[in-house]
């Protein structure tokens, strides 16, 4: 480990929590910042590697062209699905309004 400064700041954790749609209390923010810092500090070992010429591996087994035919299957029963939904209106999923909110 090259330096002692925290690998992630409270401001960054706040930003990340917002992106992930999580609300943190002040105590949580402090604790998570510390814990995430520990983990990212450990990851400094790979940060330090020079991997310029190494190909990334997104999937463990390289496969190509897996398809399904364009044929309809059995749909789910709407009533079954709506019966476990938190709120329903006119056979649709009901949510609070998105007043002035960005998508």
């Amino acid at each position: 480990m090259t330096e002692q400064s925290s690998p992630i700041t409270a401001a960054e954790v706040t930003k990340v929590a917002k992106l992930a749609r999580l609300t943190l209390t002040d105590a949580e923010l402090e604790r998570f910042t510390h814990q995430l810092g520990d983990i990212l500090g450990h990851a400094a070992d790979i940060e330090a590697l020079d991997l310029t010429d190494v190909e990334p591996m997104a999937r463990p087994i390289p496969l190509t062209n897996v398809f399904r035919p364009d044929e309809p299957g059995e749909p789910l029963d709407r009533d079954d699905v709506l019966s476990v939904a938190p709120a329903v209106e006119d056979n649709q999923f009901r949510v609070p309004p998105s007043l002035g909110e960005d998508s």
Partner: protein
Amino acid sequence: MSDEQHSPNAVDPSAIETAAAVRSGDLSAVEVLETSLTRIEEREGEIHAFNLVLAEEARETARRVDDAVAGGADPGALAGVPVALKDNLCTKGVETTCSSRILEGWKPPYDATVVQRLAAAGAVMVGKTNLDEFAMGSSTENSAFGPTHNPHDLSKVPGGSSGGSAAAVAAGFATLALGSDTGGSIRQPAALCGVVGMKPTYGLVSRLGLIAFGSSLDQIGPFSNSVADAALLLEVMGGHDPGDSTSLDTEVPAVSTHLDDGVSGMRVGLISEMMGEGIAPDVAARTRAAAECLAAAGAIVEEVSVPAVVYGLSAYYLVAPAEASSNLARYDGVRYGMRVEAPTVGEMIEATRTAGFGDEVKRRIMLGTYALSAGYYDAFYGKALKVRTLIRGDFDAAYGNFDVLLSPTSPSTAFDMGSKTADPLSMYLNDLCTIPSNLAGHPAMSVPFGRGGDGLPVGVQVLAPALGEVPMFRTAAVLEAAAREEARS
């Protein structure tokens, strides 16, 4: 005490024996089930292996199995065998929670492919087992419904995240169990609970209906009391599924037929990087003993360096959380599961997720979100994907000289409950030896191999290249025989 009573290797009939007896009509599935249910009644209160016990449903299934046999039909290869399912496998009409508040009460409208295959083979599903919330953890303490205790010592963790499944098999609640393994979540609890646990080659078992954690790492695999039972279960549930794009279109390696082939002439490499720092001396000693016993059985055993595995932990704790941050986005209170009402939809989503997820899940979602976010992708996630390439490359090099590799499964035997919950990084270090196989997509399994200094089970890990299940099971069978021999003497 009951630990000895239910010590699997000594007392219980195997899944193979049970299925054979049920299929021939010598044993009734109902009787087999009642033995399981009685054990559950006796010890579930102190172990808490299950989120849900399906006693009535199981009795119904067992009766159908017996009826089939009586009617001259063959219920299948797992006829009447009690099986426990990790509670992140979708079961139609049966609550599936991932041990999370956010999914509490949710009943999937469909069965996971593996659940269908087990049912078709005549298995009797006895319940849904506890896990670390969304399979994130190594101790099953991160369950919203309370921790699972290790059947060998109730003050110890069973390991995780499939701790409930491991404990269920170790306590004799079920003959077999299914778990999922993203970074060791089958093998590590198997080791800590003294049972066999196996992670197949990525793509060998369908993930359809497995609630995703790290999609490029997750595999479903078996828990059992014996290597042969694990082989049978793998053969029943493995094989191509057109519903999973990453499912391999190949035959499941014929592990059962090669179990007794021995290791004579086989080349076995003991991974040096997994024998030093961070590994408890008693565990390292048992692993060396395993290597010696393979050598005694005719294998050529040498130490081998797989240098990149030391970066596995860092790469894993970027890749898995990154995928998880995306996989767990859907829990937004809109369509199913928990909702915390709020004036606007954005506030509702945030309030729901904040109340619905536990700390470890939040930690990993934030870590993954950070690793993927603009400005950090290349330094973290992108780099981690390259480390996967390095690890696979180093494994490939090792497998050029060795048929299988050997290491401890877990750095230590079962640890005290609560001892690592405050320090996530120390918890993550449990996965040191198991993670590299997930990153490479390779199979690996844990076999019980005696006990540590504290008298608790030690597991030894056998690793193999992709689709190298046959040499892996052959090696595991030799280790199992040696461990049983040693226990008798």
